């Protein structure tokens, strides 16, 4: 049966065809393969690469929200809910043992110290005992996961369960072809009502599942989905209050505030690098915008130009911390925590991470997401992370029985916050790996910190929530902030469509960004921005526009 959606036909070959190169690609396939750019599949390798969002629904599992646990602040518009107090009693979501005694190896990346391995790790033993099966982790170095996965995929060396972050998937050449050969097609196990056998997997949103479809088959189990804010602006609320400053409502106010705050003598600067957030304050599109039936790239919009001009003012005014200006690797987090930077750009996770790090020694430390504003006092246009953060794949050819056992294990690990299964698989055993605070929230012990980093958690997806009830003020602020943020997504004409970026287009990005950076930092005059964009158009931007337009046409959106 061919499940490939009709629209899933825009491919690299299509792109080459569009620019009149397809004959060359076919005639010199080997040659091109030998010297193609590292990212992305070979030109002319074919295969469906632009999956049609609107035709995928039939492949995805039915969505049956789990009603066992309700947050105190309900998430709206796709924002995560918030738990200001820890659930008094945890729900036992899965009563039967999911495992049948199998032993499976699982590969996951980790950005942190290694835990002791199976056999020397009481956390692994406890979770495996409750699972009724053994999961043995092969932890990968998070920073080099692309190199490692490239080799693993090329060598066909996958283990039983493999978690791959989505940004890695998108950078592995020919992943689209390898995925069929290496990983199990889960469509027969999970499509439609079949998923109801795995109620926690059925709790994952349909929009997330759509991204798990590769080549017209449901192959990947999507990871976390409900933190779609990629980056946010954080500010030192404590220092703002102490200094009598208020949050800005326009770009002009932000600039004026920056001048007021910055005082090199006091080792205090207003900003870290906030370029990507500035684009969003000026409502520049994430990538493409559809305007009057034509595709316009971010670089070509007046909003982008205004944002670049604004960032340039920040650099000219020396309002950005000199360490950030001077070195690419300056640690903005540390500078922000020490009060040398007052407004910084970070991931949403950075908010609570820094609070957790600082509050034990500095109880007055307080940071918040900067209240939402657009450059002109209107709304911002936030760039949404549509794709789930990661996928979990099951090795092909394990046999129906093992695949079903693994799916049961992943179903267990997909149990959401507020369930016993989630507590055990994330925190471990009470009294050993964590203790409960007076508020009932878990607090990791030294053993827990060592033995229980995110491992099982990475193997499955679940609707996430803001759950740091030990910091109720944070939960309330963050959940409210998020509900507001979720009203301001920038429109994206390609929303939900998996597109393999043409190599030429992808290769164009860094040099162009470097040129823009030169303008932002004052190394080139602002007037040259137009020339930079013109060069981008000539060097492949216009060709890419045709490719992206065809994607829209294939999907019936243009």
């Amino acid at each position, binding site marked *: 049966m061919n499940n490939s959606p009709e629209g899933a036909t825009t491919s690299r070959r299509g792109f080459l065809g569009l620019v009149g190169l397809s004959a060359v690609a076919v005639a010199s396939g080997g040659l091109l393969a030998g010297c193609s750019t590292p990212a992305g599949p070979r030109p002319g390798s074919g295969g469906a690469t632009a999956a049609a969002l609107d035709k995928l629904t039939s492949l995805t599992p039915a969505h049956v929200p789990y009603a066992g646990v309700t947050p105190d602040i309900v998430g709206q518009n796709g924002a995560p809910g918030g738990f200001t107090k820890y659930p008094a009693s945890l729900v036992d979501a899965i009563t039967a043992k999911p495992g049948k005694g199998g032993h499976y190896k699982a590969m996951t990346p980790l950005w942190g110290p*290694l835990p002791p391995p199976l056999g020397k790790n009481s956390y692994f033993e406890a979770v495996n005992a409750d699972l009724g099966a053994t999961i043995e982790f092969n932890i990968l170095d998070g920073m080099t996961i692309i190199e490692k996965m490239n*080799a693993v995929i090329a060598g066909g060396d996958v283990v039983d369960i493999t978690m791959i972050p989505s940004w890695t998937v998108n950078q592995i050449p020919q992943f689209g072809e390898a995925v069929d050969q290496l990983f199990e097609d889960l469509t027969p196990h999970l499509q439609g009502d079949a998923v109801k056998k795995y109620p926690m997997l059925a709790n994952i949103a349909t929009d997330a599942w759509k991204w798990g479809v590769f080549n017209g088959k449901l192959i990947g189990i999507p990871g976390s989905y409900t*933190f779609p804010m990629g980056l946010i602006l954080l500010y030192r609320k404590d220092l703002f209050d102490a200094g009598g400053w208020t949050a800005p409502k326009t770009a002009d106010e932000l600039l004026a505030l920056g001048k007021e705050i910055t005082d090199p003598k006091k080792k205090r600067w207003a900003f870290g690098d906030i370029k990507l957030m500035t684009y969003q304050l000026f409502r520049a599109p994430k990538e493409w915008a559809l305007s009057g039936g034509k595709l316009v790239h971010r670089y070509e919009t007046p909003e982008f130009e205004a944002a670049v001009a604004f960032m340039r003012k920040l650099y000219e005014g020396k309002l950005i911390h000199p360490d950030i200006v001077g070195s690419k690797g300056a640690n903005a987090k*540390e500078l922000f925590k020490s009060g040398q930077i007052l407004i910084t750009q*970070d991931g949403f*996770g950075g908010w609570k991470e820094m609070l957790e790090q600082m509050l034990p020694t500095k109880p007055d430390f307080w940071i918040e997401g900067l209240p939402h504003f657009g450059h002109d006092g209107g709304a911002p246009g936030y760039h949404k992370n549509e794709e789930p953060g*990661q996928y979990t794949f099951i090795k092909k050819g394990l046999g129906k029985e093992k695949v079903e056992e693994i799916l049961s294990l992943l179903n267990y690990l997909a149990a959401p916050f507020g369930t016993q299964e989630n507590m055990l698989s994330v925190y471990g055993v009470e009294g050993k790996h964590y203790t409960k605070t007076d508020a009932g929230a878990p607090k990791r012990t*030294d053993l827990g910190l*060592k033995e229980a980093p*995110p491992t099982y958690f990475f193997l499955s997806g679940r609707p996430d929530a803001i759950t740091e009830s030990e910091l109720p003020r944070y939960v309330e602020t963050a959940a409210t902030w998020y509900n507001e943020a979720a009203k301001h997504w920038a429109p994206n004409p390609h929303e939900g469509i998996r597109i393999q970026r043409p190599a030429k287009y992808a290769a164009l990005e860094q040099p162009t960004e470097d040129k823009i950076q030169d303008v932002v930092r004052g190394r080139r005059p602002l007037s040259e921005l137009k020339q930079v964009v013109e060069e981008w158009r000539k060097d492949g931007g216009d060709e890419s526009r045709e490719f992206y337009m065809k994607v829209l046409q294939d999907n019936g959106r243009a």
Partner: protein
Amino acid sequence: MSTRPVWEERPSLPGRLAKGLTLSFIALIVLFPIYIVTLTSLSPADAVNEAGGLVVVPDGFSLAAYRELFSGGVVTQSVLVSLGITAVGTAVSLVCTVLAAYGLSRPGSLFHRPLLFMILLTFLFTPGMIPSYLLVKSLGLIDSYWSLILPGAINAFNLVVMRAFFMNIPEEVPDSARIDGASEFRILTRIVLPMSRGVIAVIGLFYAVGYWNAFFNAILYLNDNAKWPLQLVMRQYVQQGQSLTLGAAVDTSSGGALPPNLAIQMAIVVLALLPVLFIYPFVQRHFTKGVIIGAVKG
């Protein structure tokens, strides 16, 4: 009037002062990072937070970072692994390099020119990551310590240096041994090697430092975390908490372990530095000699 050329004249006082200052400055540039890394590793968490990064001015003393490192068993295990790989790897590499270099240094040895050409070719063309991985996989070495040693057992540069040293030994020396009835192996072990202690020490050091610092092969070839060497474990500590700044959308909201403070990261850097720091002075006297030989002979 002195007959010495001008560059051998006794330098003037200002000249010596300038030289001394320049060298002190260079030494400071080298020592300062080591100082702040060591100081940060020995500072309490408060001092690190207060400094907003690396500590430059001492503010309290704490061994907490080192205690933390050695309490889990992972770092201890990785130190043992690294020591083992360094010891075995250096031994294997030295044996292979000495044998190959000796063979290639004797003008009459069989195929020595094509063999040398093939070895020199690796200067120009290194195998790519994927072909190397596929080779190691087909040899059945994935997840084996040998995967860290065998692919790089002979370094072409080291081989060329050692061959140049061996070629420097007058042919009359082995010839006289041959007249006395010594075999080639005996000539190598009893005559050539004792005359080559310097170059062996230097090349051994190159290999040892290489094995001690290597981590990329371990990333590629080792899946079993218990086999990870120290440098790889160290990376995990140092890069903690960077997933978000990378723009990676991987969710870390599981309430996972808090990032260790900078002190722990720096403690592990100190730990990784120590062996090299200790071994260098002992091999240093051979160093100049060995390097010069590599520079003028080829």
